[in-house]
C-alpha cells in the first residue's frame, strides 16, 4: 500500500452529493494526528469538521476554501510515513504548489453518474419515485442522481446515456447485449428504447411547432429522455437570431451575449439571503412608516457619554442609542416583539436584537441575546463584539438564529432611509438613516440641526397601523430627547 494516502470527501449525511470547503484547519507540511480535525465542510444539512483518517504529514491540499467538491473526490493527501525519506515524485507530483491535482488513479475511482432512468424505476437499483432514496434517520436527501459504476456497453463519456436495457421481470428472456458500435440514435429514452415515439409534453410539442423545431432531431434532457421546453428553445435560438445579426448594423460593434455576461453561482450567504427575503416578502404583508427626527440633543448626550471616564474605552455610536430606544419602546409595546405562527401569535418577553451587518460574505444578521436585560454599557460591549465577530467572519449559526427584532443601519452607506424587509419570523425591523445637518425649525426659527429619518417595516398581520405608529413615535421621542424619555419611561 502506498504511503501517500488521498482522502476522498465522504457522503457526510445520507445521500449528499457535494460539500463546500469552508476552512482548512491544516496546511501543507503540517504533522497531524489520527482524528485531528483537518477541514470544515458545509453540506446541505450541516457544517461539520472532518477528523483526519490517518496520522502523518499533509502532503497536498487539492481544493481551496470556498470551493464546492463532489462526494468521492480526493481533497487532501497525507504522507503516512513522513519520517521515511522523500516521496517518489510519481505518486502525487510536486507538493510545493498550493493546489496540485490528485493522482490519476484516485480520479478514475470517482464513479460516474448514469443518466436518470437508465434503470427502470421500481426495479432493484433503480431510483425511487422522484429520484429519492429512503434514509434511516434524519432528513431526506436532495433529489439528485445516485453515483454508480458505468454500465457495460455504455459509451465511456459520462454524458452518454446507458443503452443497456434492464431486463424487465416478466419478459426476462431478453439477454443483456452490448450496445451497437454505430453512432447512437438521436433520442434515447429512459427505458433504453432507441426508437419509437419522441417523448414530449403537449405544451412542448405546441412550442416546437410554433418555432418550427423538428422534435425528432433533438436529444431530450428531461426525465426519461423527454424533450423539455428549454431543449426546444435552445434548438430554436440560433435560427431566430441569425437574420438579426445579418441586418443589424449595431451587432458588429456590440454584442449582448454570454461573452459579456458574468454568471455567479448562487450559494452560501447569498442563497440564504435570497431565500429568506423572498419568503418574508411574500408571506408577511409589509407596511413601512417613516419619521424624521431632530437628534441634535441625542448626539450631544452621546458626546457627554464619551467624555465620562468609565466609558473611555467603549465604542459609542449613534446606533447604540437607536438600540436602546428600540428596547425601551418594546417594553411599552410588547406586541411589536412577536412572531406569526400560523394559528397563533407568539409574543416574546425577551428581545434578541438583530443588527444587520454587511460582511465580505454578504449580509448577515447576528443578534444580541436577551438584549432587553442589558445595561447600556453591556449593550455597547455586546454590539462592538457582534460587529467585530461579523467582520472577522466568525459569526456562528447560533448567533444568527432566534432573532426577534432587527435594526438595519443603512445610514452608514450615506442614504436617508429605506423600506426594509422583515427577517423571517420577526414582526418589526427599523432602518436607521444617515444623520445629517439640515435646516430645521427649532424653537420657531430655521436652524441647522442634526436630523435623521427612521423607517419602520412591520408585519401587518400582527401590528396594526396604530401600534406601529406608536412604537415608531416612541423610538423617535427617545432619540429627540433621550434623557427626558429615560426619566419618563423607566
Amino acid at each position: 500500500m502506498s504511503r501517500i494516502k488521498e482522502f476522498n470527501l465522504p457522503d457526510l449525511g445520507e445521500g449528499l452529493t457535494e460539500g463546500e470547503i469552508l476552512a482548512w484547519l491544516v496546511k501543507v507540511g503540517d504533522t497531524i494526528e489520527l482524528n485531528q480535525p483537518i477541514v470544515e465542510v458545509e453540506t446541505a444539512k450541516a457544517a461539520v469538521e472532518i477528523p483526519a483518517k490517518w496520522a502523518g504529514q499533509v502532503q497536498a491540499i487539492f481544493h481551496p476554501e470556498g470551493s464546492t467538491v463532489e462526494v468521492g473526490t480526493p481533497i487532501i493527501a497525507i504522507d503516512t510515513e513522513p519520517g521515511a525519506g522523500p516521496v517518489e515524485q510519481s505518486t502525487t507530483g510536486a507538493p510545493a504548489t498550493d493546489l496540485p491535482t490528485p493522482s490519476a488513479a484516485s480520479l478514475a475511482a470517482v464513479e460516474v453518474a448514469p443518466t436518470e432512468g437508465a434503470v427502470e424505476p421500481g426495479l432493484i437499483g433503480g431510483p425511487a419515485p422522484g429520484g429519492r432514496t429512503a434514509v434511516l434517520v434524519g432528513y431526506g436527501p436532495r433529489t439528485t442522481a445516485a453515483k454508480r459504476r458505468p454500465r457495460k456497453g455504455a459509451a465511456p463519456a459520462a454524458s452518454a446515456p446507458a443503452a443497456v436495457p434492464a431486463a424487465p421481470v416478466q419478459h426476462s428472456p431478453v439477454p443483456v447485449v452490448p450496445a451497437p458500435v454505430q453512432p447512437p440514435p438521436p433520442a434515447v429514452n429512459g427505458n433504453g428504447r432507441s426508437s419509437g415515439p419522441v417523448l414530449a409534453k403537449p405544451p412542448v410539442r405546441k412550442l416546437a411547432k410554433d418555432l418550427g423545431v423538428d422534435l425528432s432531431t433533438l436529444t431530450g434532457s428531461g426525465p426519461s429522455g423527454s424533450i423539455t421546453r428549454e431543449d426546444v428553445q435552445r434548438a430554436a435560438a440560433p435560427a431566430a437570431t441569425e437574420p438579426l445579426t445579418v441586418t443589424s448594423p449595431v451587432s458588429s460593434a456590440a454584442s449582448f451575449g454570454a461573452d459579456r455576461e458574468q454568471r455567479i453561482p448562487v450559494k452560501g450567504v447569498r442563497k440564504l439571503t435570497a431565500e429568506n427575503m423572498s419568503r418574508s416578502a411574500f408571506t408577511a404583508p409589509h407596511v413601512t412608516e417613516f419619521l424624521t427626527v431632530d437628534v441634535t440633543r441625542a448626539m450631544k448626550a452621546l458626546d457627554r457619554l464619551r467624555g465620562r471616564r468609565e466609558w473611555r474605552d467603549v465604542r459609542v455610536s449613534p446606533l447604540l442609542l437607536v438600540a436602546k430606544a428600540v428596547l425601551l419602546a418594546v417594553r411599552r409595546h410588547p406586541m411589536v416583539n412577536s412572531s406569526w405562527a400560523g394559528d397563533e401569535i407568539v409574543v416574546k418577553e425577551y428581545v434578541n436584537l438583530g443588527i444587520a451587518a454587511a460582511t465580505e460574505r454578504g449580509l448577515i444578521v447576528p443578534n444580541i441575546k436577551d438584549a432587553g436585560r442589558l445595561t447600556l454599557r453591556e449593550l455597547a460591549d455586546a454590539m462592538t463584539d457582534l460587529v467585530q465577530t461579523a467582520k472577522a467572519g466568525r459569526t456562528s449559526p447560533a448567533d444568527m438564529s432566534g432573532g426577534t427584532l432587527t435594526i438595519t443601519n443603512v445610514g452608514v452607506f450615506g442614504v436617508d432611509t429605506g423600506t426594509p424587509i422583515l427577517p423571517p419570523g420577526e414582526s418589526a425591523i427599523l432602518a436607521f438613516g444617515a444623520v445629517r445637518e439640515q435646516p430645521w425649525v427649532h424653537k420657531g426659527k430655521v436652524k441647522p440641526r442634526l436630523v435623521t429619518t427612521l423607517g419602520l417595516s412591520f408585519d401587518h398581520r400582527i401590528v396594526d397601523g396604530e401600534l406601529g405608529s406608536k412604537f415608531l413615535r416612541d423610538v423617535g421621542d427617545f432619540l429627540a430627547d433621550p434623557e427626558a424619555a429615560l426619566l419618563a419611561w423607566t
Partner: protein
Amino acid sequence: MAKGDPGAPARGRRAAPRSRKATTGDPELVQLLTPSGERIESVTGPDGTEYRVDFTDEEYRGLYRDLVLVRKLDAEATALQRQGELGIWASLLGQEAAQVGSGRALRTQDMAFPTYREHGVLYCRGIDPIMPLGLFRGVDQGGWDPNEFKFNMYTIVIGAQTLHATGYAMGVAMDGKTGTDDGEAVIAYFGDGATSQGDVNEAFVWAGVFNSPLVFFCQNNQYAISEPLERQTRIPLYRRAAGFGFPGIRVDGNDVLATYAVTRHALDNARHGQGPSLIEAYTYRMGAHTTSDDPTRYRIASEVEAWQAKDPIARMKAFLEREKIADAGFFGEVDEQARREAVDLRERVLAMPNPDPDTMFDHVYPNGSPLLDEQRAQFSRYLESFEGSAH
C-alpha cells in the same frame, strides 16, 4: 465491573451525607450524585421508596470505567462516519450515565429493547461494541444474537420497540416467570420524541392493563431531532404514567448512581409481579441527533454550556477523587484502555468484509421462495451489467 448484580454488599462507610425528600408532583429529580460530585446518601421518592446505592470502591471504579469507555468508543464511531467509513451514527454523547446506570441495573435474565442509540446499554450487556458499527457500515444487520445477550436488535422506527417489549413482557408473565426474587423483567428504551408516538401510548395502555413486568425507560434528552421538549409535552413526561395507571418517576439521567438505583427498583418491582413503571431519565444530547444533523441550527450555545456543567463523567471523577476511591494512576490507566479499545475498534471496522450483495436474500425466508429466487436472479443480472463486475 461484572455484569449482573453489583449492588449487594453494603459497606456504609461514607461519612454523614445529606438526605432529602423528592416531593410529589414537582419536577425535582432523584439524584444521588450532584453535578459537582457530592454524594447524597439516599433520596425518598414520592411513593415513599428510598433510593440508595451501596457500592464497593471496586464497583464505583467499574462504573467510571464503563462511562469513559462508552464515551470514547462512541467518539471513535462518530469520527469513522466523518471519514466515510460508516453511513450514519447516532451519538450517545451526554447520555452515558443514563445508559450505563440502567444497563448495569439489568440482571442476566432481564430482556432489553433498545432504540438505535443504546450503545452504552449494549456495552453493559457484554456485546462486542463493533456489532452496531457493522449495521451502520451497511455490511450486516447488527450481528448479535438477541436471545444470547437478552438485548434485542436496534430499532430505527421511533417507539416501535415499546410494543415489541410489551408483547415480550406479556409473554414473560404468561410463562409464569415473574413473582419471585429471580423473576424476569423487561426494559424498553425510547426518547422524549417517541412519547408522542401512538405506538408508545398503546404500549403504555397494554402494559398497564396487563400488569406486565416492564420498565419504560425514557431518556429525555430534550430534543426530538430539532423539536424541543416544550413542543412534545405540557407536563413533565414521567407524570404521563399516572394517566395509564402505573408509577412514573424522574431521575437525574446524568447521575449514574441514581439511574442505577431507580432502574434497579423498577426492575425488581416488575420481576416481583408488581407491574410496569415509567422512568424519565432527565439528560441532554450533547451532540447532534445523528451525523446528518446540525444542532447549531436550532439550539443556542449557552444551553449546551449549561449542560456541560452537569457532565456525567466529570461528576463521577470528582466524587472518586474527593473520596480517594481512585487516583491519577487509575484515571490514566482507564484513558489508556479507552484509547487502545478505540484503536482496536477502528482497525476491526476497517477490516470488516463487504458481504456478497446477494446475501441480502439469505435471511428473508428460512427455506427461500420462488418469488425471492426470481428476484435474486434478476439482481445478479443487474450486477453483471456493470463494467468491472466480478459477477
